[in-house]
């Protein structure tokens, strides 16, 4: 086998194991469970795997022949997830960016072919970015498979206000104490998406999301400074990758940002209390607002690279 083709086969295998299979399992589990939040999250993950397939084929990271064959065999599964969102009028659809939604519509409604959407900007030299693409795919995969991150994403994006309030740690006007030990245990533990969404997992997911945003930002800040990569392509890679996974942390839709900041506020208060109780030697006076301010800044940076709808071929 030609080694380059071998690379692509191996990459495709990795995609199947790391993205497609877990997402498919999640849809099957959600169908059994019948919860709307869980179903939306699972179908979102499944559609995300479609977009990674699409982008991976376009980047020539996956082998064209196997990818197209795979697409033809799984098209119906993807269509089911597409219809899940298309039939719903509530805000879940807006979790996905316009360009992605247009691409799905183009793929599923206009024709059955994979590459029918004409709105993507293309890389000037995609081959110079293939290793970077693999690394960002690795980072995304790590985040997507994290159980706590999935729960966080699900509740800030898809939960109804009533469901969100059930999860909130406030009881009336009085704050209910968060069990930091339980949050810590959830952070250290891992595993599949659990049947019960507990608040400790939401808070653990919050920390995981912060970490992911910082890693992502660090990676692309550095990539844009890389003299061996065309600046336009670096921006484009960021935009194209981010639009694929952005639905997990899309602070523009619904109450996602408010909910996320609410978690920051509550955790900040709890952490500062802990610092004071344990009398840690600090060089500054801890303040619960510090965490919220920090998170606000991070959200701003994260959302500044909000993907745009691109209308011309590059």
């Amino acid at each position, binding site marked *: *086998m030609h080694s*380059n*083709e*071998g*690379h*692509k*086969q*191996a*990459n*495709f*295998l*990795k995609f*199947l*194991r*790391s993205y497609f*299979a877990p997402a498919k399992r999640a849809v099957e589990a959600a169908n059994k469970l019948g919860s709307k939040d869980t179903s939306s999250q699972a179908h979102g993950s499944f559609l995300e795997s479609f977009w990674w397939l699409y982008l991976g084929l376009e980047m*020539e*990271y996956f082998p064209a*022949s*196997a990818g197209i*064959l*795979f697409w033809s*065999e*799984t098209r119906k599964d993807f269509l089911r997830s597409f219809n899940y969102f298309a039939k719903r009028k509530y805000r879940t659809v807006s979790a996905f960016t316009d360009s992605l939604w247009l691409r799905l519509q183009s793929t599923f409604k206009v024709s059955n072919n994979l590459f029918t959407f004409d709105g993507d900007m293309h890389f000037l030299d995609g*081959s*110079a970015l*293939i*290793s*970077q693409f*693999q*690394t960002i795919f*690795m980072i995304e995969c*790590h985040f997507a498979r994290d159980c706590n991150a999935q729960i966080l994403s699900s509740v800030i994006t898809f939960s109804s206000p009533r469901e969100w309030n059930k999860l909130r740690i406030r009881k009336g006007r009085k704050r209910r104490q968060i069990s*930091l*030990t339980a949050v*810590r245990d959830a952070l*250290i533990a*891992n595993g599949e998406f659990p049947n019960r969404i507990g608040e400790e997992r939401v808070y653990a997911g919050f*920390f995981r999301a*912060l*970490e992911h945003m*910082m*890693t992502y930002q660090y*990676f692309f800040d*550095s990539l844009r*400074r*890389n*003299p*061996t*990569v065309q600046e336009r392509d670096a921006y484009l890679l960021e935009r194209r990758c981010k639009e694929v996974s952005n639905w997990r942390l899309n602070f523009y839709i619904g109450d996602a940002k408010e909910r996320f900041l609410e978690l920051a506020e509550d955790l900040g208060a709890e952490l*500062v209390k*802990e*610092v004071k109780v*344990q009398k*840690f*030697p600090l*060089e500054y006076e801890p303040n619960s607002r*510090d*965490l919220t301010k*920090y998170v606000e800044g991070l959200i701003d940076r994260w959302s500044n690279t909000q993907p745009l709808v691109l209308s011309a071929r590059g």
Partner: protein
Amino acid sequence: MDGPTLKHDWIDLDGHRGSYALLSPKPHKETAIVFVHGYGGDSIKTWLEFQFLIDSLADEYPWYSGCDLFFYKYDGISSHIPASADSFLAFIRDIFPIPRRDLLDTDVQDFPGDFQSAAYEYYRTLLPNQYKHLVLVGHSIGGVVLRMAIWTVLRNAHQILIDEGVHNCDDSEFIKVEPLLGSDLCLFAPANLGVNFTGLLGVIANTRMIGTLLINWLRPVQAAYSDLSSDLPILDDVRKYTEEYSERFPSVLALRARVLWATTEKVVVMWQYKWDGPVEYCKDVTHTEVCKPTPEFRRPLEFVSYAQQRRAQAS
């Protein structure tokens, strides 16, 4: 036109959740590099950019293109260091010198398509029958985990030699009994001599608020941290015996680390063992940045590779 060429393949490792490999497709590979992250780090973000700079800068650092890289993941927060060292040894036994044949996690049952057999065929060619050289790379507490692992295998090797009636062994006998002792040990800002707590809190407070809050919050259960900050004799013992054996067996490479520090180091106590390599510093980076190469900051790439490169050139 055959499309873009990727040089290292990313593959998960069976039985080692969160750990992964970047394998070179080159035949006749002889060197494995194993990365061990530090406190609160992980197998991806601690080494961010190593993963692709080895390929995108391959013209300038060609040595990496013939190496397989393994990124080890462990619980660096709630496990004690001796336990982490033990787990690491179980990991490294699967790789060096003879990699376990089913180490690559390639199970793809129930998937459609004919690509499977082709992918299997490709995977089969990726692992060499045997590695000759091993480079162990640790950051912060990962450095202590490596030191402790080396010390453990050294004691075991010594015992094996005594059991075999070899009482006045030389360096080569040690390495013959325990090939890990011939590895090149590269440490980025290791916590060899402990942690500077006030400095840690101070520096993170100024840079990453969340880090400070998390560290404070997690401290009561930080087993690894308590190993480094209390009066437990772990660090003293590892140092004492490593130095003692290093003096007696100067050719046992793994006892003599090469260490790279950040000049602004404030997190760990900044010094090294008696027989370690000459002190190496780099400017304008922090404790967490010292192990992360970027296109502008290539020292980590050079640091990991230079000893093996020199040896290869000399031979």
